[in-house]
């Protein structure tokens, strides 16, 4: 570890915390009819969209209606994207004459982008035409907003004094697109282009290299995809190697800009939450717990990567682990980005996760297994964290023998059952599918690296799918039908096993009267609660995976430092 490296990680974290309040205030204005500087342009457009779609913006929805609207919108989005992928060869804007995407891969990809996972069992520059990339962008614009709308509705459930309505999904969707997603994406596109990302619709360039052979250089509307991809914490890159491909992130500055984009809405939401429940300390404590866990994870990853590979050191070499890393990023920034990619759940990568050191790969795995709540993607991160908060007050209530309350609402058996459900289903899906994959021929056929690292690859794939993350240990043959289907299902389970219980909790507490705090209330705006929350995430959320982690990355770590390799003797 170097001092510039550590300082860089700390500075990024400080900036991420500093933008929480301004972003949160803007979000609050957008979702609570406040005034913003975009109103003169967007208000008339907004009204027109409601007229075209027949939406009555003043009609509020109960939680079941809100969920059905989300479900319907996701279903339509999935079908349309699937069709476009299947027929891309017959459509224009396909200068490389790429073939139709096959049925397995189209299913997997359509689910993947609809659920904000952006798991990619393909390489963009040799699979997707420009039309297909644009249709992927449509879901990159829309799928994070589904998560955002969820948490906005959830917070309404807690912040409203009474009543059973959670707002109108279509209104939340339209406002998020017009006021947040599209304007920020447009400005970010230009920033990215200025930093070296292409934005054109040209055929691939053929360059005559200095040594003689020609080099085909992929082109396309890269910046306009990268902007919403990173801002919306989607993660599905234009290119196979995502942010590692130099066109997507041409410099350390570009990668940091993209990181800040990705982290902005999730940190802003914690402030939004505090403001909505009229106690901003509630939001700061949640953000504090998230940032502490994130910072801890980043430093552990960086330490492992900076220490390097002892097997290579035996050859006389020195230095950090640079296999699968780019020089312009180096070990520190790569470690920061790879921790962020599973903490904030954006899933794009700037280094090869499969080539991380065992402990360097364990941290991203842990971030996903604990439910992607360590900051987390748009809405779903905070949503998961609030489910943990409900469990934390419940556990605290058990210790002192009182009925727990959170934000003035009594937490009773229904809420706790739902919160537990949101945690148990993903656990079963990850461990169940992993067990199936490593014990079946179809699953084993896709494993690339031998030994415990192979188990890590499979564990990572299902954790990524369930957590709607999208990053991968890239060696796994994700395009095999076994994995396209099982990871596809994992993504669906992960998404809806979170949505349904969360909205059910919101619907239930919205009907409860707010009770004033009493002497027996456990205050949730203190650091004591922050610590309890971290403990709950680590113990309840991730400890169940400890045996699997022991067989994968931990076993590999100890074997590595004892000088073992796997699958080739010596």
């Amino acid at each position: 570890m170097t001092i510039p490296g550590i300082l860089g990680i700390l500075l990024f974290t400080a900036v991420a915390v500093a933008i929480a309040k301004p972003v949160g205030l803007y979000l609050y204005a957008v979702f609570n009819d406040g005034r913003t500087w975009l109103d003169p342009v967007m208000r008339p457009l907004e009204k027109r969209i409601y007229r075209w779609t027949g939406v009555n913006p003043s009609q509020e929805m109960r939680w079941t209606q809100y969920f059905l609207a989300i479900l319907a919108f996701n279903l339509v989005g999935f079908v349309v994207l699937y069709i476009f992928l299947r027929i891309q060869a017959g459509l224009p804007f396909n200068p490389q004459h790429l073939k139709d995407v096959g049925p397995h891969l189209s299913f997997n990809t359509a689910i993947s982008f609809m659920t904000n996972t952006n798991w990619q069992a393909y390489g963009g520059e040799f699979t997707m035409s420009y039309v297909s990339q644009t249709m992927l962008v449509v879901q990159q614009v829309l799928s994070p907003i589904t998560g955002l709308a969820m948490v906005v509705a959830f917070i309404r459930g807690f912040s409203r004094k009474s009543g059973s309505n959670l707002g109108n999904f279509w209104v939340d969707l339209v406002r998020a697109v017009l006021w947040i997603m599209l304007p920020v994406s447009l400005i970010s596109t230009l920033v990215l282009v200025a930093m070296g990302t292409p934005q054109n619709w040209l055929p691939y360039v053929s360059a005559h290299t200095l040594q003689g052979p020609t080099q085909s250089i992929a082109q396309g509307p890269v910046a306009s995809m990268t902007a919403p991809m990173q801002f919306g914490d989607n993660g599905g890159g234009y290119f196979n190697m995502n942010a590692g491909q130099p066109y997507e992130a041409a410099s350390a500055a570009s990668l940091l800009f993209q990181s800040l984009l990705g982290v902005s809405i999730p940190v802003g939401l914690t402030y939004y939450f505090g403001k909505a429940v009229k106690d901003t300390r509630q939001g700061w404590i949640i953000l504090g717990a998230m940032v502490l866990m994130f910072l801890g994870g980043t430093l552990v990853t960086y330490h492992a990567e900076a220490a390097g590979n002892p097997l290579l050191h035996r050859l006389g070499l020195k230095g950090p682990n640079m296999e699968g890393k780019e020089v312009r990023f180096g070990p520190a920034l790569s470690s920061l980005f790879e921790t962020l990619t599973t903490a904030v759940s954006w899933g794009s990568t700037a280094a090869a996760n499969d080539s991380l050191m065992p402990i360097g790969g364990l941290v991203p795995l842990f971030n996903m297994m604990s439910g992607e709540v360590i900051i987390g993607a748009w809405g779903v991160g905070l949503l998961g964290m609030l489910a943990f908060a409900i469990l934390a007050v419940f556990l605290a209530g058990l210790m002192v023998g009182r009925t727990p309350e959170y934000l003035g609402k009594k937490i009773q058996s229904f809420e706790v059952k739902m919160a537990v459900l949101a945690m148990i289903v993903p656990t079963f899906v990850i461990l169940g599918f992993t067990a199936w994959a490593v014990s079946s021929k179809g699953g084993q056929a896709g494993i690339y690296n031998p030994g415990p690292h192979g188990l890590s690859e499979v564990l990572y794939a299902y954790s990524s799918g369930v957590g709607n993350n999208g990053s991968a240990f890239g060696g796994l043959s994700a395009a095999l039908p076994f994995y396209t289907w099982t990871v596809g299902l994992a993504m669906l389970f992960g998404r809806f096993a979170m949505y349904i219980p969360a909205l059910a909790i919101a619907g239930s507490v919205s009907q409860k009267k707010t009770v004033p705090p009493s002497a027996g209330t456990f205050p949730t705006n203190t650091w004591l609660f922050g610590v309890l929350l971290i403990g709950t995430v680590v113990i309840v959320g991730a400890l169940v995976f400890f045996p699997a982690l022991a067989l994968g990355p931990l076993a590999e770590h100890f074997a590595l430092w004892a000088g073992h390799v796997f699958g080739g003797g010596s």
Partner: protein
Amino acid sequence: MIRHLWTGTRMLLIMIGLVLVYQAVATGLAQVLLPYQANGSLIRRNGVVVGAGPIGQAFTAKKFFWSRPSAASYNAAASAASNYGPTNPALLKEVKGNLAAFLKANPGVRPSQVPIDMVTSSDSGLDPDITVASALIQVPRVAAANGLSASSVRALVVSQEVGRWLGMYGLPHVNVLRLNLALMKLAQHSGS
């Protein structure tokens, strides 16, 4: 549910329209304001496109500064990493091979002097950069192959150095394509 599906379909059509407008405006603005970057930051030499600034290409000849090993063979239409795990014997084999080739081309260099980025493959397979240390260690070979003095080539490397961003982010590096272009220029001027 049927009503929601109908609303959702109309909403999706409008959203697709909005994304198309966004794509068109983004492309238009980028092409007008930043045409060089928007079209791939291509580098021309005597009118011929020889590569793109951000995209690495293979350099294996003695007279050039070498790029990093690439799992994609520097195919810029199919980026790829090796994806070798740290305990995979294939990783050791690959690094041993890279190290042997580097030592052979740079006589007098000991393994402990070889910067690790020169023997490991990058994430994209298109890494345009090498660390400054990796460029400096190649100076004696490159200078001799081009009939230049080591000090002038070393000065060239130093002049091309890109430091850490804000003093904190990334490794100090040089862009190999730009460095080699500058080298060719230098050799031309001092040669013939």
